[in-house]
């Protein structure tokens, strides 16, 4: 993209300041971007987060270890599963709690299911922004089928509050495996329709190719992880780089693309969904018996020894980390979530939007899968 020369100050190309504000049809979540545009070219974009800031880390310092368990899954509403997993793993590292093997498997099944649900939500948001209402309807319908599975497994549709330190909260209800496989088969049968209607649709190619390009060096310099990196050909996936749970016990591969534009990111998301569906089948085949939960000490008296830990895992949008420090007391001393949308939404988005047209703002933002609650915490 050539940079518009400074000379043309007056006339239609004088610089305007527009608010792609919190209340906007193209905006998913509560986030606002201040666009300095000349004509319909964005000269400079400035992200303006903070609309969903609840001061999570301050609240966590005021609650005991088990009281934080329902709070922590509310950091990001689109994929609560990975938040619970990162908090539980951090607490287990600090307190030295072991998780039984069946518990680990159920955790990974639950994480993969919430990854698919989160990708389907992203697909709805992206296709809606590009005008494909039907594809959005399908994605949301399939996501709702997965939410019914969550409701059956954990008792809650969206906030599942399921993974807690020591394992998972309840065992699988009987018949859960068959129903999950039916839902996954139904989604699997729809993939050709998705491809034909959306992924191989020329309109999508026109709108997404070459838009919002983030090169590999740029992504690596500004903390990009997840699809942003994998779309530039780098197989950087925390489930492979730092295996957790049972991801190293099943074989699956990391889909990548080359160009690093919106198109490649969405195609990486699509391939990841298909990969997750296969992973769940493999996990169910190797599901061992036995307990799913090692009882933690009495929650009112649980003093976790002094220390700190940094845990990271692969959420649907990139590397999700948690720096957790304890001073030996009943409450966390400091918790800081490293959420994937933070660098994507603040540094990479501003770089990617520069020089693009206004109509592609929503397109680029959602292809980077920027979700507002994660940035503000």
């Amino acid at each position, binding site marked *: 993209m050539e940079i518009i020369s400074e000379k043309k100050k007056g006339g239609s190309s004088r610089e305007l300041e527009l608010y792609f504000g919190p209340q906007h049809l193209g905006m998913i979540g509560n986030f606002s971007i201040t666009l300095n545009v000349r004509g319909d070219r964005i000269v400079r974009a400035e992200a303006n987060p*903070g609309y969903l*800031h609840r001061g999570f880390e301050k609240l966590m310092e005021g609650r005991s270890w088990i009281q934080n368990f329902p709070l922590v899954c509310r950091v990001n509403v689109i994929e609560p599963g990975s938040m619970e997993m990162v908090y539980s793993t951090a607490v287990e590292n600090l307190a030295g709690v072991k998780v039984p093997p069946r518990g680990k498997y159920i955790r990974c099944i639950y994480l993969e299911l919430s990854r698919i649900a989160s990708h389907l939500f992203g697909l709805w948001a992206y296709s809606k922004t590009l005008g494909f209402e039907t594809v959005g309807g399908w994605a949301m319908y399939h996501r709702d089928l997965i939410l019914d599975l969550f409701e059956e497994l954990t008792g809650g549709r969206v906030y599942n509050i399921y993974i807690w330190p020591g394992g998972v909260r309840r065992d699988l209800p009987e018949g859960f495996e068959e129903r999950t496989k039916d839902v996954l088969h139904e989604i699997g049968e729809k993939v050709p329709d998705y491809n034909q209607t959306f992924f191989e649709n020329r309109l999508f190619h026109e709108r997404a190719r070459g838009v919002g390009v983030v090169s590999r060096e740029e992504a690596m310099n500004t903390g990009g992880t997840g699809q942003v990196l994998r779309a530039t050909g780098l*197989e950087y996936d925390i489930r492979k*780089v730092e295996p957790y749970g049972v991801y190293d016990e099943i074989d699956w591969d990391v889909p990548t693309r080359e160009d690093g534009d919106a198109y490649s990111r969405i195609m990486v998301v699509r391939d990841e969904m298909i990969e997750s569906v296969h992973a769940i089948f493999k996990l169910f085949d190797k599901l061992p018996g036995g307990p799913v939960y090692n009882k933690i000490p009495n929650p009112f008296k649980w003093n976790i020894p002094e*220390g700190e830990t940094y845990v990271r895992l692969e959420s649907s949008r990139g590397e999700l980390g948690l720096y957790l420090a304890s001073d030996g007391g009943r409450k966390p001393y400091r918790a*800081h979530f*490293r959420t994937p949308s933070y660098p994507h939404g603040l540094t990479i988005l501003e770089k990617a939007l520069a020089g693009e047209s206004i109509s592609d703002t929503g397109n680029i933002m959602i292809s980077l899968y920027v979700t507002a609650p994660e940035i503000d915490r």
Partner: protein
Amino acid sequence: MSSIEEKITANFDGIEVRKIEEGRIEVKTKKEALLSTLNFLKDEGYGHLGLVSCVDRIEEGIFELVYILSRYLVGGEVAVDQASLIVKTEVPRGNPTLVTSVKVFETAEPYERELHEMFGIVFSGHPRLTPLFLERDIDLPPMRKDFDTRKYVEEEFESIPPVED
């Protein structure tokens, strides 16, 4: 090739390196030596700054800044099973000023803005140290330990009367 610990201790004095858990190595440096340490580590391949955080050690009267570095690539290939570094430095609570590390890691720019707003740490040389999240200007930065959020809610919000018809 020698492990990263020896390399660090070889090149810097007055630095403590300690393995705190599986895959995590803690590197404690002085405030002044921070930028050179980060530069050195970046050249060593630790190009991924995951997080810039701050722990308010109120008893010792210091802010403990935490930089978490991991590796993207090892010799061109994706870095598998590589330990991450937790680089720590201390800043007195009295006047918490520190040189910005945006020149070394561009990722640090929003994190430092947040720490400025939440703890009141001034990063000299930062391109735009403007508020990021908060709408109301609270006199005491909210993430400090001496800021009591429940008392703040009691005074500020509960005191506003409900609307009688």
